[in-house]
Structures are given as C-alpha cells and as structure tokens.
C-alpha cells in the first residue's frame, strides 16, 4: 500500500518538475512576471514530494516490506536497523532516488537563497534545474523503479551486500551526491546565462559560492570513499584508479579548475566563456560518471548490476544536457566576449594556468578510463591500470605544485614576476633543506617520493610565509585559500610517504608465535569463533608491542555472511599520527590454528585524508568572505530597489 503511495508521489513529482521545466522559462521568453514567479513555489513543492517519496522507501526498508522487489533484494530479517536504513541507497534504484532527492534539495535551496538574482535570472536557472530533475525522475520511474512489487512476497530477503554494511558506506554516497548535484547549479547558471546571451560579475559571484560548497562536498565524499576502500576492502590500498573512483574524481578535477577560474571572472570581465565551458564540463562529467557506473560499459568492482537499457537512457540524458548546453555554447560564446585585457605577470594568468593544468589532468584521466572502450569499438580489448594513471597524474601535478605558490604570491591585475620569484626564493631553500632532512630521516626516498615531499614543503612553506607576511589580508577568502593550499601540501606529504615508504609483510603465524615488522613485535594469539548480528566471524588476536611494551591488541576478522554466502576480510587498524598499523587475516593454513596474516605499516596515511579535509575546510571558510557577503548584500539591495521601482 505504502509502495503504491510512493509510486504515485513519484509520478506527481515528475509532473511537477516538468511544469517547473516549462513555466518559468516560458515566462522569461514572454516576459510574463506571473509565470516567472511560479518557479520558486514549484521548486518547494518538488522538494516536498521527492523527499516524501524517499522517506517512504526508507520506511519500507525499516518495516521489512518484502512485497517490494527492491526491499527483499537488498535486505533481510536479520539485517540490523541501521543497515536497513542505509540499504535504501545501497543499490541502483534507491541510489538514483537519492540522487533525485538531493537534486530537489539543491533546487529548493537555490529557490530560497537567490535573492541577489533578478526574477528573470532565477526563473531561467530554476527551469534549467527542472530539466535536469525531470530527466532523472523519468529515469527513476521508467528504468529503475524502486517501488516494483513482487507477488507473492518472499518470506525473507537476500540481504545487503556485506561490503556495504559499514559506516563509511552510510555517509559516502550522500556526500558524493551533494557534490555531483551541487555542480548542477553552476551548470544551470551557465546554461541560463547562455540562453540570455549575457553573463556579468553578479551571476558568477552568486554561482561561485554554490560551486565552492559543491566542491567541498565532493572533496569530502571522495576522501570518505578512499578511507572506506582502505579499511573495508582489506588490501591496504587507498586509491585504485578504478573507473568508478575516476567517475568521482573527474568532476572534482574539472570543479577545481572551475573554482579557480571563477575567482578571476567574478572580479573582471575576463575568461567568461571559459568559466561557462568549465561549468558545463564539470556537470557533464558527473552524468558521464553515472553512465559509466550504471551502464556496465566498463566493468569495475563497484558495478554490481548493469543494464543496457539504463545505459541508453543515461546516454540520452547526457546527450540532452551536455549536448544541448554545448550547442548553446557554440551559438552564444562569441557574445560573451571578455573585454578586460589580462596582464601576463598577474595572478589572473596563474589561475588560467591552473585551470589548464587541471583540465588537462581531467582529460588525461578521462582518456585512460575510456581507452579500453575506444579499443573495444575497434574490436580489441585492453585494460589500463594504475601505472598509467599514477605516472600521468604525477607528471601533471609537477607544474601544479611548482606554480601554486607563485600564483598565490602574485597580486591581482599587475605585478612583477621577478619580485615574486625573489620573495619565494627563501621558501625554495627552506623546502630543499627540509626535503634533504626528510631524505635522511626516513633512510632514503625514491624519486617520486622526493619530488612529492619537496612539493609539499614548498607549498607549505610559502603558504605559511604569505600568511605571516600579510596579516592585513586576513579575510575569509585569503584564509580559506591558504588553508586549502596547506591541505594540498599535507596531502602531498602523506601520499608520498604512504606510497613509497610503506612496509608490507605476508607471513604464516602459529599461535603464540611472534614476528617483527618495522620495529614492532606482533604476537599471534590464535583465532576464535564469534557470532555477531547477521554474520559469523573468525576473529584473530594479535598483540602489538614495541620493546616489550604492549601497544594494542588488534582483532582482524574473517567474516561470513550466511545469507549472501560471501566471506569478507575485515582488517583491524591501529591508527596513529605518523603511521597506521594494519593487520588482516588471510586464510587458515591448516587445522592446527596456523594462519596467513598480512601486516602493513602505512606511514602518514592519515595526513593524506587530513589534507583533503583541509582543502574542504578551505572551500567552506571562503564562503564566509566579508567581501563577497558585502557585494552580495549590495546586489540584494539593488534587486529590491528595481522591484520597488517597477511597482
């Protein structure tokens, strides 16, 4: 019964968003204020409808309604309540519904927080967002309906994939969706601007804050994904260049280019077309990512179910969104001519360089991801692995790390390159000295690690120097930028250390036996059977100590989920500021209690994620910039005055 209600609300939501797609846009072209004004209330209505639908699906899981196909396929009587809730978005149908829910939330937020835009602008933006929502709602309804009924209902469900029965999985997808969908706001603004044929500073300033927020969500979503892969997959890796990971990384890279270019185009009449194009690219990559994950075109560990019909559907959506936007772009870009000249020795030039580096990286990784498909189209099959991505990305990030401090050092508008380089020279020496120090402290580093660590020190030292030197510039924009750039430095350091100085040991241990890895003693105290919630596990006990002083007891598990007939390796990790101790169980070698055990020492791995969090924090801090708040208030006042004048 409840499922029918959900289905009905879904149809209503589709109708509402179709109306939202049409009415305000028609109002804009006919210059009909009444029609344009429908945009906001329709957005709120859409949000209420979609949210209710989503809540209904969650309730179906909580109540274990196995007459609903999607529920019995991904839940079971024994599944704990918290995972019943998260199972809602654990598989395809529910995750697309969640996408739509987040989309509706963003649309409502745009409707609410857009007082600084004129009515004609808001109506266009909301209409474009309506187009996107309509496409995805149709996709839910016609290609991935979560409310389909099975008759007769099975007595028990199939249970949720054990990989997804985990805390990281609870929050990772929603955050990623907030980021993906958030980029649709920048996209909608770009398209709306192309429709109107003009774009000014106010538009870009307004969209910049949304882009920053979306980028922050995307950043934290990717970090969580990496962290989840690290502790849940049991291989000790944190990034696999898997197509699905790339699908989230590509919009992030394009988004990084976008937020940096926006910093220029909101100040000057420059790079307007480029800003618009980057906004289109960033969101199109989100949709492309969804296509890659959902169509089964590329097989990956993440794509649990693939369906060609869904693939075609998303491809059509991608064609409409990106194809339509790029056609508009082709028609209108030359009207968006940027009038201000850009001085070569200025921060503007450096930000342009930044965007070029990031967009090149985007396409390099896109190419690597699609390469197997290009070959397949020619009748061959190949597989592109992490060596390609690792090397290409390393090479592309060298100019990024070298130029970053220079970009932050140079002033807006016009500066002297020579003076900036001179000011940075001390930091170059500090970074060199620290790198040499690190080289000896960690008994030698290979080339990539040395380069990465030098990059980290170089960025950190110059960022700190800039903060100390210009205390007068302590506004949120500057602080946000510095925090994010320091995050880049911390990330580079953590990544280089983790990638090149980790220790891995696979060893056979008898009960009571002790082994030494990197100065730590690991004593194996055997394996015992435990039964927890919906799984059984063989739980190992490993005492870690150093110089006879006990540090921690680790309990890695080998889990077995009877419903899914699937074994799972659950590592146990002792996290630390400078290193993680990571232990996971292999297999029982014989029946005398000997086990294959894998031990990792992962130096500074937390720094990597912490660096990512700092980048996110930087983007959030920048939202509170006094300058942009003041300018936005001015815009609001101006819009109000115009409205008064009209009435």
């Amino acid at each position, binding site marked *: 019964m409840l499922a029918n209600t959900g289905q009905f609300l879904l149809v209503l939501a589709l109708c509402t968003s179709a109306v939202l797609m049409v009415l305000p846009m028609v109002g804009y072209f006919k210059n009909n204020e009444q029609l344009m004004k429908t945009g906001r209330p329709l957005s709120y209505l859409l949000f209420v409808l979609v949210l209710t639908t989503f809540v209904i699906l969650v309730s179906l899981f909580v109540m274990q309604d196995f007459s609903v196909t999607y529920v019995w396929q991904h839940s079971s009587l024994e599944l704990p309540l918290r995972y019943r809730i998260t199972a809602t978005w654990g598989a395809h149908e529910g995750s697309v519904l969640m996408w739509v829910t987040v989309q509706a939330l963003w649309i409502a937020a745009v409707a609410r927080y857009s007082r600084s835009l004129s009515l004609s602008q808001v109506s266009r933006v909301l209409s474009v967002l309506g187009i996107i929502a309509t496409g995805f709602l149709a996709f839910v309804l016609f290609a991935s309906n979560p409310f389909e009924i099975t008759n007769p209902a099975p007595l028990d469900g199939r249970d949720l994939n054990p990989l997804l029965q985990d805390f990281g999985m609870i929050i990772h997808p929603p955050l990623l969706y907030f980021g993906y969908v958030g980029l649709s706001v920048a996209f909608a603004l770009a398209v709306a601007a192309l429709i109107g044929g003009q774009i000014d500073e106010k538009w870009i300033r307004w969209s910049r804050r949304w882009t920053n927020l979306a980028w922050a969500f995307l950043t934290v979503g990717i970090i969580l994904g990496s962290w989840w892969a690290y502790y849940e997959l049991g291989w000790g890796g944190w990034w696999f260049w*898997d197509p699905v990971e790339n699908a989230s990384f590509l919009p992030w890279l394009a988004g990084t280019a976008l937020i940096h270019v926006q910093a220029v185009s909101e100040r000057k009449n420059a790079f307007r077309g480029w800003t618009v194009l980057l906004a*289109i690219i960033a969101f199109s990559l989100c949709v492309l990512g969804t296509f890659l994950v959902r169509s089964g075109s590329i*097989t990956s560990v993440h794509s649990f179910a693939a369906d060609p019909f869904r693939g075609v559907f998303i491809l059509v959506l991608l064609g409409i969104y990106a194809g339509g936007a790029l*056609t508009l772009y*082709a028609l209108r870009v*030359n009207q968006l001519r940027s009038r201000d000249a850009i001085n070569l020795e200025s921060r503007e030039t450096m930000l342009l360089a930044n965007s070029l580096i990031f967009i090149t990286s985007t396409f390099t990784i896109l190419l690597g991801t699609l390469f197997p498909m*290009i070959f397949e*189209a020619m009748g061959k099959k190949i597989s592109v692995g992490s060596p390609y991505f690792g090397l290409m990305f390393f090479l592309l990030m060298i100019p990024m790390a070298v130029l970053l401090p220079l970009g932050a050092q140079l002033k807006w508008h016009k500066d002297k390159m020579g003076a900036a380089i001179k000011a940075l020279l001390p930091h170059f020496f500090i970074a060199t000295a620290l790198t040499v120090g690190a080289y000896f402290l960690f008994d030698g580093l290979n080339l990539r690690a040395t380069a990465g660590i030098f990059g980290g020190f170089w960025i950190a030292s110059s960022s700190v120097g800039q903060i100390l030197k210009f205390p007068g510039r302590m506004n949120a924009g500057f602080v946000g930028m510095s925090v994010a750039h320091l995050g880049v430095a911390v990330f580079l350091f953590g990544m280089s250390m983790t990638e090149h100085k980790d220790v891995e040991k696979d060893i056979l241990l008898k009960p009571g036996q002790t082994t030494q890895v990197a100065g730590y003693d690991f004593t194996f105290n055997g394996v015992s059977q435990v039964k927890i919630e919906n799984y059984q596990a063989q739980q190992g006990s490993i005492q870690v100590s150093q110089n006879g002083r006990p540090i921690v007891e680790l309990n890695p598990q080998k889990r077995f989920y009877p419903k899914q007939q699937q074994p799972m390796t659950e590592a146990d990790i002792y996290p630390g500021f400078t290193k993680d101790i990571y232990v996971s169980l292999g297999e029982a070698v014989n029946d005398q209690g000997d086990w294959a055990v894998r031990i990792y020492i992962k130096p500074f791995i937390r720094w990597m994620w912490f660096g990512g969090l700092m980048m996110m924090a930087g983007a959030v801090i920048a939202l509170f910039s006094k300058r942009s708040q003041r300018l936005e208030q001015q815009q609001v006042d101006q819009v109000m005055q115009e409205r008064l004048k009209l009435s």
Partner: protein
Amino acid sequence: MKKALIALLPLSIFAALIGLLYVNLSTHSEDLPSPLIGKPVPPFKHPTLYSNQVLTEQDFRGQPWLLNVFGSWCPSCQYEHPLVTALAQSGTIKVVGLNWKDEAVDADRWLRKWGNPYHEILVDYEGDTAINLGVYGAPETFLIDAQGIIVHKITGVLTEENIREQLMPRIEQLRP
C-alpha cells in the same frame, strides 16, 4: 576562424564521445566471433600454479573442459568468480584456469581470498597462450571438447544468462 573553433571544438569532442559510448553500448555484446572456433586449441606447455607439473593441451584430452582466463588484477574476474565456482562445483564440466600475466604470489592471495574453483591452474606469465587464443582481455572462457577442438568462446564475464543460453546447451551436446 578562431572564433568558430572556440565555439565548435567542445561540441565536436562531445559528439565524438557520445558516438563512442553509443557504439560501445551496442557492440558490447559478449559474443564477438572468434576465428578459432572449430579449430584445435593452440599447442601450449605451462607449469601449474599448485600441483607442480607441466601440462600441455594433450593432457586434457578425453573429456570436454572449460578454459577460464583470469588474473588477480582483473576486477571482472572477481565479479564472475562465484559463477565459475558454482559451475565447477556442480560437476557439469571440468574447469581449468589460465592465470594470465599474473604474479604467482598475487594469484595465490587472490585464490585464497575468493576460493579456488579450478581443477588445474595453468600459469601463462608471458601471455603467449593468451595471444595464441586471441584473448582480448580477462576474463574469457573457452569451451573445448574431448578432442581438443574449441567449441565456443565467451568474451567478458560469465553470467547466469550466457551460461544458461550459450554454455549449457553446448555442454549437453558434447555429452557422449
């Protein structure tokens, strides 16, 4: 000229991309014809992963068998692994693994983690036999009859569908 280029370049790249994705989607069928069907298995000689022997194609004569090309580096292999296991355990047919371009340590770890369904595992470290078999990428599965003739080939992962519709009828026919 430059104006037109700026305007049209992104759209053209995108159109090419959509074309590629569409072609891929429609040709992504699992049954690319193989010229080897109806021909004998190319001769090979490989050490095995566990049983410490060196086997050739002659050693498998006498009953039909499946050759499943896999590697620990291949996510799709992990995806089809439960089906390979089920097929091998059902006793319908002898399943032989061809461990393709893989480190023995990694293969061993992978098999210990996910289980070893194979009757024997041939180690093709250099990838020679895979080339002779015209392997596009892992996983691929060859159905070979008692005389060593390749009867059928499945490119890409095994699914319940292609096992039911492509493999099982042919295995039935091979039964004496």
